[in-house]
């Protein structure tokens, strides 16, 4: 017994080292699987608050670009207003209304929450953002995040007032995407080299691709609204080993200057999840 204590005393520093090392590594390796940890909650709030203060100053430097992007979006939205369109003159035509129920009435699937980006990075290999919206505002993990130009990322962790978003510029980010014209189904990821470009792979060579084609989110995704721009084809590479293209695409959102985002809630998500569960059970 005495020897055990002597041993512990002699190697106490080494044991302390091993304990701290183990603690750090266990945090690191459990983080990738379970994003929601007690540490995550705490650090979200602390780091988020500090970042918010600095961001208040920093946001002045990109104001003009933000204004421009918002003006463009406003213009796009204004064009949807009824006052912007003219009703065709039908007074001299006979129109028989045979449908009693308004079959054209749409119901809402996606709800948008406005959120301010309080911290963002582009220079790391695993780039995340912090948004100033959290569980108190109804945000849950796995929601889509879109910017003024297009897709930004996915919510991965939520605390009371902040949420962490895995941006498209993350080595582990994978988004199913289609070409707007050719509609070949592919996968958008990031090779970690240049934050202005993403990589679209798995598009079959049978699809005709041209430079400048728009890459949009897939209609089969259950979290991203379909048809949302992700990027524009910049360079076309033939993958020699497989029968697919490897396309270099320019991001639709300027990740250097992005400051505001919309978190998208899929109102049919719960129903979809339940439906999926019944299939998996059987």
């Amino acid at each position: 017994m005495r020897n055990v204590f002597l041993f512990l005393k002699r190697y106490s520093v080494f044991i302390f080292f091993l304990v701290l090392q183990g603690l750090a590594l266990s945090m690191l390796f459990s983080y990738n699987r379970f994003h929601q940890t007690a540490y995550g909650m705490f650090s979200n709030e602390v780091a988020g608050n500090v970042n918010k203060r600095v961001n208040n100053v920093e946001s002045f430097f990109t104001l003009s670009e933000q204004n421009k992007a918002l003006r463009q979006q406003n213009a796009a939205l204004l064009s949807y207003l009824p006052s912007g369109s003219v009703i065709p003159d039908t007074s001299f035509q006979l129109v028989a209304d045979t449908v009693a129920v308004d079959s054209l009435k749409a119901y809402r699937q996606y709800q948008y929450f406005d959120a301010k980006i309080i911290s963002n990075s582009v220079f790391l290999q695993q780039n995340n953002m912090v948004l100033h919206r959290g569980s108190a505002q109804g945000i849950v993990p796995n929601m889509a995040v879109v910017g003024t130009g297009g897709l930004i990322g996915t919510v991965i962790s939520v605390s009371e007032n902040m949420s962490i978003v895995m941006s498209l510029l993350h080595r582990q980010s994978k988004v199913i995407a289609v070409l707007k014209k050719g509609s070949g189904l592919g996968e958008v990821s990031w090779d970690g080299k240049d934050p202005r470009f993403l990589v679209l792979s798995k598009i079959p060579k049978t699809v005709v691709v041209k430079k400048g084609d728009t890459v949009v989110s897939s209609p089969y995704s259950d979290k991203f609204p379909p048809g949302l721009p992700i990027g524009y084809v910049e360079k076309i590479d033939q993958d020699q080993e497989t029968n697919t293209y490897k396309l270099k695409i320019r991001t639709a959102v300027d990740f250097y200057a992005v400051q505001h985002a919309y978190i998208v809630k899929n109102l049919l998500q719960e129903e979809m999840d339940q439906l999926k569960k019944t299939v998996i059970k059987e």
Partner: protein
Amino acid sequence: MSLVFKNIIRFIFIMFIQIFVLNKIPPLHQFIVPYFYFVFILWLPFKIKRTALLFISFAAGMLADMFFKTPGLHAAACVLIAYIRPFLINLLLPKEATDWGNEEPTKKTMGPVPYATYLIILTLLHHFYLILLEWMQFGSFLYFIGKLVATTLVSLLLIMITDLFLNRKSKLR
């Protein structure tokens, strides 16, 4: 100014530089990431207790992790260099570290060559471990080696510049 107070101020300053200046720099290349915060551990006084050193490094690493959003990654690397640091100092300096009082490692207290060796070995070790852990999650061997070399050079450059500017006070040698 008391030693503890001085180090706390330095810690806040270094962290501020890392998070709000260096992290905001537009990326030059995939391999170049300016890591600087760990220099705080290299500049702690000689006579600090080893368990205290380990604990402080762990806390510093965790704080850096909060802003890098990689829980444990930087903490693990910091704890490693904190563990190696006393052995390296004993190896590089003939005297016992306890005689040095409140001095901290600088060019003057250690001599230029041992100080440079001390910086290079610990920086390399920190980055090696950090990028190795990152490599385990993604990336190729070329990524590992390239980033190791590039980040180490950038970090050493940053430390050199800071040393020229800061002129930390020391009386020995």
